[in-house]
């Protein structure tokens, strides 16, 4: 049997402290080549800090990270030469037009001018920005800006693409446009690290993911496996119920979670439970659906607000 290919990202016991605050508290990650790896977690979980350490711009307090076999602390330039970074906050250069943004960025990678022009035009085409090539940045919509940030991240043909919340604030069209490109890149062999708050996005794009909270990894696996491991196959959501229902659920020993205005009932036999309940109660305000990554996420990280 051939040896497994070396990982694209290998993080060992990584700790990051800001003064007394421990932002990342000893995480281990292994990202094999060619996959889309998700980094999920509520605000303040340490996702962006982790990405910035992988990116070689934030020094580690402890531990080690290797990217494509290179040490991020000692070989920062070589690491960064092979990365594409799509940051959370748009940092396009407002002093230049769309196309010029790509050309100026190419210079930072020392890409020869002719090749940079060819590559910029290809990328504008790939991200449907050709018509906007000579527009100033301020005239772009939010979706166009995100697409341009992605185009810029691809200017150096990166082997690893870091996407930090690439679709936050986008309309559905904008989001699907980004997803489609990310899938195409994955098919072409680019390894992708994605952080997101959207569970649907993670389920759509990620082969493997980890859920982080308070700087630690609290769960990992494929989206399907996480769902089957941590929640049930089916979930019955009820948002209007007759008085006897909660007591009945309890008497059956079913796993239910009750919020102020909603009950979540976790079960592997959704149909049977639904039939049983409809035969006893008026059930016109309920929804039977599959368990999702969002259920896993809320179950593991709780429903408290993080601000």
């Amino acid at each position, binding site marked *: 049997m051939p040896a497994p290919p070396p990982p694209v990202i290998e993080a060992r016991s990584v700790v990051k402290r800001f003064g007394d605050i421990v932002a990342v508290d000893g995480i281990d990650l292994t990202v094999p080549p060619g996959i889309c790896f998700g980094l999920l977690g509520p605000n303040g979980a340490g996702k962006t800090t982790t990405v910035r350490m992988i990116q070689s711009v934030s020094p580690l307090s402890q531990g080690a990270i290797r990217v494509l076999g290179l040490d991020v602390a000692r070989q920062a330039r070589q690491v*960064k*030469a092979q*990365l594409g970074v799509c*940051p959370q*906050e748009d940092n396009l*250069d407002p002093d230049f037009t769309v196309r010029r943004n790509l050309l100026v960025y190419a210079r930072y990678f020392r890409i020869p001018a002719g090749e940079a022009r060819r590559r910029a035009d290809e990328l504008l085409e790939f991200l449907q920005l050709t018509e906007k090539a000579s527009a100033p940045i301020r005239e772009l919509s939010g979706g166009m800006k995100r697409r341009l940030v992605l185009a810029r991240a691809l200017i150096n043909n990166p082997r690893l693409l870091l996407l930090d919340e690439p679709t936050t604030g986008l309309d559905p069209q904008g989001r699907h446009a980004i997803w489609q490109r990310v899938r195409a890149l994955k098919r072409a062999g680019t390894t992708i690290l994605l952080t997101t708050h959207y569970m649907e996005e993670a389920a759509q794009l990620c082969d493997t993911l980890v859920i982080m909270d308070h700087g630690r990894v609290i769960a990992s696996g494929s989206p399907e496996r996480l769902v089957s491991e941590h929640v049930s196959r089916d979930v019955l959501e009820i948002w209007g119920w007759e008085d006897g229902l909660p007591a009945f659920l309890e008497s059956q020993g079913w796993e239910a979670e009750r919020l102020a205005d909603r009950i979540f009932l976790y079960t592997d036999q959704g149909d049977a439970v639904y039939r049983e309940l409809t035969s006893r109660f008026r059930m016109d305000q309920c929804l039977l659906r599959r368990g999702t990554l969002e259920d896993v996420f809320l179950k593991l990280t709780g429903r408290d607000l993080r601000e």
Partner: protein
Amino acid sequence: MRGFSWRAVAVWRRDFDVYLKTWWTNLLPPILEPLLYLVAFGGAMGGMIGQVGWRGANLSYAQFLAPGLIAVSIMFWAVFETLYGSFVRMYYQKTFDAIVATPLSLDDVIVGEILWGATKAVLVSAIMLVVIGILGLASFPGCLWVLPFSLLAGLLFASLGMCFTAICPTIDAFNLPIFSIVFPMFLFSGTFFPVERLPGWARMLAGALPLTHTSTFVRAVCLGRVDAALWGPVLYTAGVGFVLFWLALALMRRRLVR
């Protein structure tokens, strides 16, 4: 993550490209500024002042003032470039964040910015030299020494501006270094009157300020006095510039490497 390289030139080119976009409006101020000052102070006020004695020479006030204006412009253009210009790029535009995601280090970015600030000082002094030369207030070819010196002084003042950028939490805080350091230099470093006119203690203080040495150098070469006495201002500017340059790098690392 530390250390700078020739890659810093890519940052310099970025800033230069932005400058070229609006080259026409960038060209006007250094042409107008000396003219306005010379009409107001050299002409109107100079008539009241008469001759100014400087290092054994009797100069008309316009002759005295013109080189001082070049020195002041070297300071202002370099300081304000790394003060407001760099701060806007760092804080509001997040341009530094975008660049450090490429093979460039933070040090490369800061060095590129300082180089650009110094370049602006060279450009502005070249343009002013032409204007002042046409007015017959600069002696050729001696005054051409202003150009290499403006690069050196530009590096000093751009580094100084970068130090302020590194320590000011917001753009409003710039008033403090501007009114406590930059403006006093403008007024007391031999721009409008010879430093020798100051009382003893103030003359000592003025002697410690970088602009005093810049205006001494510029005035001397504009009067055609190219001699060994120029080594004083050159060595002072190189030494202080060197210290401020490393300080700017250290302070920016402290601010941005997290």
